[in-house]
């Protein structure tokens, strides 16, 4: 079982006490424990079981404006003594940085709300196996399916964040995740696709058969793809890809990229970066939300932020260090966003598909082609040619390219937002991008 609050708090208090004794003026510590149990199936048979029990501790010590940190998976007091001594010693030898400090006390979370993030249910491996059997049997109906790999994971975790300023809080989380990766084959091609569901509560998880069927359908429709010519064409991003564009936006407005001057969105607060219709929210207090939290990784209270209001950038994502550097207050985003999403647009998915006589619907991208310094974007892509609202044929071995500065202004959104991941977008269309093919 995952370790209780008392055990983690005791470890945290021990570390803070020792750091002080050894000469640290301030310190902070995170102790966490995560227990995962996974069962993998392949072609309707058990393939792998995996149990992991991970303990971790990370400690940051300050001496005035000097700072250093250590982390370890070995929580025995003997080891912690050696490490904290080393940490304090390293701190002494590290140059000062005027912006180093614990968060301001008045910004720290005062209460920990129950956001409904922990389900006490324990699902035995046999029950996981039942789920995967149902899933794989539903996924294997078509003769074109040549390989199925599916997985079920239960994760329970707990943590404590404490600092020498008196902050000490933490809470349990749980997640239940099922996924399926399918390979299908015909005379001309072999293709792979997947489906996935992850929830805080077991009872909210997608139905096994539906998940399997969806993964299989999504794979089969990719068979016998064609390559198209190079042209300028409207691109429609499936929700699972559209969320990646929102993640790139989040990296570009992180206070570290802004303070270092390495973002194409530097100095763009209160300027229009999207069209009027676009709103972006980061909402940390959603019940059962996959990205929900009470406070960030420094203990700063996390409030809802409307990052983009009618196309205008309103906030950066600010932590204590970079906030001090930029002369701004932390808004509780150390460690990134919580539940980040584009608000729905005002047309249906169908109308979005129909809005151009010809467009490309992208279901997968590969490569690391997002440059947040320049805003340049170029990735390999797989998808479908759409004509007059209909999927005509699958496409692969193409790239799509553009620059986020332009792409952001040309985004239109459907009204089909769902909260499947921590970062979510409705189906997205961007006009004016370039496809490279034949």
């Amino acid at each position, binding site marked *: 079982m995952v370790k209780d609050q008392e055990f983690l708090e005791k470890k945290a208090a021990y570390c803070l006490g020792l750091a002080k004794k050894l000469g640290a003026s301030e310190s902070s510590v995170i102790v966490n424990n995560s227990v995962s149990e996974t069962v993998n199936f392949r072609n309707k048979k058990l393939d792998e079981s995996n149990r992991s029990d991970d303990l971790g501790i990370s400690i940051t010590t300050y001496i005035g404006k000097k700072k250093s940190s250590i982390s370890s998976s070995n929580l025995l007091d003997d080891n912690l003594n050696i*490490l904290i001594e080393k940490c304090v010693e390293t701190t002494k*030898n590290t140059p000062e940085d005027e912006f180093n400090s614990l968060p301001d006390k008045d910004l720290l979370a005062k209460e920990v709300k129950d956001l409904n993030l922990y389900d006490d249910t324990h699902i035995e491996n046999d029950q996981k196996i039942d789920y995967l059997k149902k899933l794989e049997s539903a996924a294997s109906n078509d003769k074109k399916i040549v390989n199925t790999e599916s997985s079920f994971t239960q994760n329970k975790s707990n943590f404590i964040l404490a600092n020498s300023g008196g902050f000490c809080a933490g809470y349990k989380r749980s997640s239940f995740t099922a996924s399926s990766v399918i390979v299908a084959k015909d005379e001309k091609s072999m293709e792979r696709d997947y489906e996935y569901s992850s929830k805080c509560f077991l009872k909210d998880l997608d139905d096994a058969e539906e998940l399997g069927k969806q993964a299989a359908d999504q794979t089969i429709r990719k068979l016998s793809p064609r390559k198209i010519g190079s042209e300028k064409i409207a691109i429609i991003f499936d929700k699972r890809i559209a969320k990646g564009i929102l993640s790139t936006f989040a990296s570009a407005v992180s206070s570290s990229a802004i303070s270092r001057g390495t973002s194409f969105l530097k100095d763009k607060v209160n300027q229009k970066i999207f069209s009027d219709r676009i709103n972006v929210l980061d909402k940390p207090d959603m019940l059962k939300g996959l990205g929900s939290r009470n406070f960030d990784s420094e203990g700063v209270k996390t409030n809802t932020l409307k990052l983009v209001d009618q196309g205008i950038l309103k906030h950066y994502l600010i932590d204590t260090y970079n906030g001090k550097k930029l002369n701004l207050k932390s808004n509780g985003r150390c460690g990134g966003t919580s539940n980040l999403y584009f608000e729905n647009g005002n047309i249906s998915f169908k109308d979005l598909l129909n809005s151009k006589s010809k467009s490309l619907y992208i279901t997968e991208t590969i490569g690391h082609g997002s440059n947040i310094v320049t805003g340049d974007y170029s990735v390999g892509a797989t998808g479908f040619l759409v004509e007059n609202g209909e999927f005509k044929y699958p496409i692969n071995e193409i790239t799509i390219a553009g620059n986020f500065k332009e792409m952001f202004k040309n985004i239109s959104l459907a009204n089909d937002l769902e909260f499947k991941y921590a970062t979510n977008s409705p189906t997205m269309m961007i006009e004016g991008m370039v496809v490279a093919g034949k």
Partner: protein
Amino acid sequence: MSNFFKKSDLSRSEAENIISDTLQKCDDGELYLENSKSESILLDDNKIKNSSYNSDLGFGFRAISDEVVAYSHSNEISKNSLKQSSENLKSTLKSVKGTYNHEIPKSNKKYYENINPIEQKSLNEKIKILNEVNNYLRSKDENIKQVTANFLGEQKSVEIIRSGGETLTDVRPLIRFNVSVMLEKKGRKETGVYGVGGRQSYDSYLKDDNWKSVCDEALRIASVNLESKPAPAGEMKVVLGPGWPAILIHEAVGHGLEGDFNRKKTSAFHNLMGQKVASEGVTIVDDGTIDNRRGSLTIDDEGTPTEKTVLIENGILKNFMQDRLNARLMKTKSTGSGRRENYRHIVLPRMRNTMMLSGNQTQDEMIKAVDKGIFAVSFGGGQVDITSGKFVFNCTEAYEIVDGKIGSPIKGATLIGDGPSILKEVSMVGNDMMMDPGIGTCGKAGQGVPVGVAQPSILINKMTVGGTKL
């Protein structure tokens, strides 16, 4: 060498008994113990931003019966914890009736020294070099707006205890030194990144002001990019420079030749053994035995000594890369390619140093043979879909080629190709094979492992370049 049982209530002989008891009717399996120490020291924005140290200790217990793998890992090396893991493995593998394979090859060869690079250089010396890097670069070019430099050092001790008590050990040093530069000129920003590393001390790479050449290279790449124009879009000829561009080989064919995907028949290469998959003159090996290289290993993470595995010989597909599980199921032998990121992960067949060997043409001849195309010198990362065979990589330094001459630099673009057919499009192989500088990390199934690549210059007849200029 770490003594994993020194501060534990579990003795070695008790551990051996639990291992033998758990694995007695399994086909294979082992207890993998790991103790790693790592450090990171980062200079950024004119300051030492981060100095951190990590110590990680744990075990992973694996039992294999036929195709089924049961795995359990924990940070606590104790009697209770190992027994709990053992129960967990037994409950997964309910009715096992295999015969444990005790056979494991032996070798006395070592490909790196038993050192701890972190201890070989003091913190103050490391901080001093990082500050010198910052001052050196900022005084060199007034357009420099950002300098990031960091040291990453690690020592990983592993011990593998097999059923019957057979024990294999390895101590692996690894370091990396990286420099990243951002230039800004007339409102335009571009970056350049370069680094060096391998399984030796920091000083082996940095002595005699060698760090200056790393800085110079990062600055050179950023300066070239500042003058770059939009990249073309469409199919064209591509000349790849020697060394690091061999990520193409790693993505295009390397992953597709890993044993697991071929046993499961999900690789585009699974039915091509013995067939021609590349142009004549193309030979590709995966070698874990080169001294001090980032991808080298004395033994893999199952205890098998590594080797030089010929994957493609003169165009013909010869071997897949194998760990013990996939080798047994495919009725062949492990190539010493069983690797894991750390004790938290199961073993998978992985690449080590993947290299295309030299041919006899020159880079000059290749450039002259191209009317319209691009010359790609340096890359960021790459990725592959092993099932469809499509792969990409991102250029970080590239030029257009017009009428047999190198022209203007072009903006970073993604190149996309088809793994099983791309090597048939190789029409010239250079005589200038070069190793990469020692910076690669390969990701697979959520596990990152250090790897190397090498290749000579090559000319590819047709690839799709993902620029914006139609």
